[in-house]
Each structure stands twice: as structure tokens, then as C-alpha cells.
């Protein structure tokens, strides 16, 4: 596990080295390109800020009112019997519809348990290895006017479930 953690820390600097090196080899004005991209990045973040404010306030309301605790305790018994942390379930379900809403729930876990706790690690991996199934399907299929989606939903849910199982396992291994 130590090795994986060490390699994890190396991935980003090496990726940056590779990309900047590739750009320089292609004789691109790399710094100008960087600034253009950074501008887009800044605009993206500012664009999602209202969404985050809304969803984090929504999660804040659910947490402070005591509803979130009640919801996750409700199913906790038999979920934990299966080895599934009950706090993960709402995140995984919400992620099927909306990435930012799931992020709101995940940040709540970070706040309560810390990002390096088992739960924090599990939820970090979970959100990194799953996609918004229903959102993506509707955008892609709507664009070609397809209504009958064949085996797409079953496959997407199966893959997401496998990702979630792997996250729970890896989260446990890492902590």
C-alpha cells in the first residue's frame, strides 16, 4: 500500500512534466496556452459556485436538522452487516443523478470524519470512479433521439456498483 501511495503522489508532477515537455517539443507557446486554460478553469469554478452554494446549503439544512443522521441510521443496521458504510449509500445514489449534489454530501463526510479517515478515503475514491449515470445517458441519447436504450442502463449500473464495491474495499485497505 505504501508504494501505491508514493506512486500516487508522483503521478501529478510527472503528468505535468510530460504535458509541458510535450508542448515545448511541439514548439507551442506553452505559457500562453497555460494562461488561456487557467482562465477557462477559473471561469469553470466561478460557474459552479452558485450550484455548490445551493447544494451545500441543502446538505447543511439536512445535517443540522438531524434528518441526515436519521436517514443514514435508518438503514445502517443491515447495510453495515453487509460491510457497506451507511454514510456512503446516499452519496452513491445521489451520484447517479448529480455530481455536484454528491459532492455536497461527500464534503459533509470530510467535515465530520476528515478526508483521511476510512470513510473519507472511500468517498473520495467512490466519486472519482463513478459517473452521473442518468444525466449522461439522457444527454447522449437525447442528442440522437434514441428512446429505447437497450442494455445501457443495466451495464452502467453494474459498472458503477463494481466501482463502489472497489472503493469500499480500497478505502478499508488504505486506512
Amino acid at each position, binding site marked *: 500500500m505504501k508504494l501505491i501511495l508514493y506512486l500516487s503522489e508522483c503521478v501529478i508532477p510527472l503528468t505535468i512534466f510530460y504535458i509541458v515537455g510535450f508542448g515545448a517539443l511541439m514548439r507551442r507557446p506553452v505559457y500562453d496556452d497555460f494562461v488561456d486554460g487557467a482562465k477557462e478553469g477559473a471561469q*469553470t469554478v466561478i460557474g459552479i459556485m452558485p450550484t455548490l452554494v445551493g447544494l451545500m446549503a441543502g446538505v447543511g439544512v439536512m445535517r443540522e436538522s438531524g434528518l441526515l443522521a436519521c436517514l443514514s441510521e435508518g438503514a445502517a443496521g443491515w447495510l453495515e452487516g453487509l460491510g457497506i458504510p451507511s454514510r456512503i449509500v446516499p452519496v452513491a445514489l445521489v451520484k447517479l443523478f448529480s455530481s455536484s449534489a454528491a459532492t455536497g454530501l461527500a464534503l459533509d463526510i470530510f467535515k465530520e470524519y476528515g478526508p483521511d479517515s476510512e470513510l473519507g*478515503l472511500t468517498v473520495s475514491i467512490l466519486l472519482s470512479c463513478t459517473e452521473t449515470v442518468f444525466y449522461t445517458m439522457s444527454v447522449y441519447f437525447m442528442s440522437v433521439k434514441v428512446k429505447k436504450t437497450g442494455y445501457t442502463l443495466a*451495464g452502467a449500473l453494474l459498472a458503477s456498483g463494481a466501482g463502489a464495491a472497489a472503493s469500499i474495499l480500497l478505502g478499508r485497505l488504505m486506512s
Partner: protein
Amino acid sequence: MLNYLWSFMILAGVGWAALHGTLPETARGALEAAGEAVSLCVTMLGIMSLWMGILKIGERAGLIDRLAGRMAPVLRFLFPDIPAYHPANRSIAFNMIANMLGLGWAATPAGLKAMKELEELEEERRQEAEGFSASCGAAVHPAPRGIVSHPAPRGTVLRSASRGTILRPAPRGTASREMCTFLVINISSLQLIPMNMIAYRTQYGSGAPAAIVGPAIAATAVSTAVAVLFCKWMDGVGRRRAG
């Protein structure tokens, strides 16, 4: 969808608070969370600007195209029935590479283009199937997906490149096999470096925000492997049922 989810969060939360006497805490919770969202965005502003800037260098230098060019064997394995010359190959490869790099804004347009091209390919197949059934006098019913066992003339989009049998196109409004496979793999998540998540972890005081990269790649590999196996299996079931 989000409209329902969000109104449930707010309405059920406030309703619950009113019943349990936690209204003051709830109000404070909402206000604090709103402030917290902004300070999170400040952290993200730095990290995401840096990362998007780096990725832009790669994009402008033609990195996506370069990597997409190496995807040919993968595409042949996943989509054996798309003719090698077809433009859908390129769009699918571009979409997959952009997704791996986490370039959502570049991935989606390419993905939608791929869907359009897959639909065009399916339409070509439908037209050929009509012509083919008329010419040999056998009605090809528009059954879901799969193959019929007549020999096909060479050099048509109807002939399965991998098996030499004739494909049975999906009726209009139904997803073709390639569309299903493409989307299942796309949704299985391909992103290698989850920079957003690293930014969130930094904001919440993680000792090693990037430590999740390796495990995240492993989990992504698991979900993608399951997606590929499932699609290959469904593909086989479809062929057997039709054959």
C-alpha cells in the same frame, strides 16, 4: 431531477427541524454551508486554474489526437463491427482519451459527435438491410440486435468485420449495440487523475490529498473492466439469440 432532490433536501430538512426543535441550528447550518461553499471555491480556483492550464497545453499541442491515434487496437476490440474507415472511430477515441485526462469539456462534444456518427452508421445499415432483403426475397424483420445467417455481399456496412455474418440493424429510435457499449464504457468512468477530488481534500485539511490517485485508478479500472465484460457478454447474447 435536481429540482426534486434539492427541494426535498430543503423542505424535508426544515420540516424535520420544525418537528424536532432544531430550527435555529438549521438556519445556522444553511448559512455556514453557504460561506463554506465560497471558501471551497477559492481553494478550487487555484487548483483547477493550474490544472486546466496544464491540460490546455496538452490539448493545444495535439496530445489528445496523438493518444487517440494509439487507440485503434482498443477500438477494434470493443467495436469490431465499425468499419475501420468510419469517422465514429475517431470521435470515440477522442472522447475516451479526453475522459481519461479529465477534459470533460473536450470529451462531451466528441462524445455527442460519436453518437451522431453511430446513428448514421446504423441508418446506413438499415438502408442496406432493406435493399438486401428486397434483393433476396427474404424479409429481414427489425429484431432488436444481432445477426442473420445469410451470406452478405462483400464491402458493405452490414457485414460484420469480425465474423463475416450479416448484422441486423436496430430499428429507429433504439440504441445500436455500439451506442450501448460506448455509453456503458463512458459511464464506467475513465478519468485517471481526479483533480476536483484532490482540491476538495486539500480544502478539508487532508495530509495527503493526492494519495487517492492510485486507488482511484484501480477502482476505475475495476468498473471499466466490468463494463467491458458486460458489453462483450451482452453482445454475445444478442448474436446467439438472433442467430
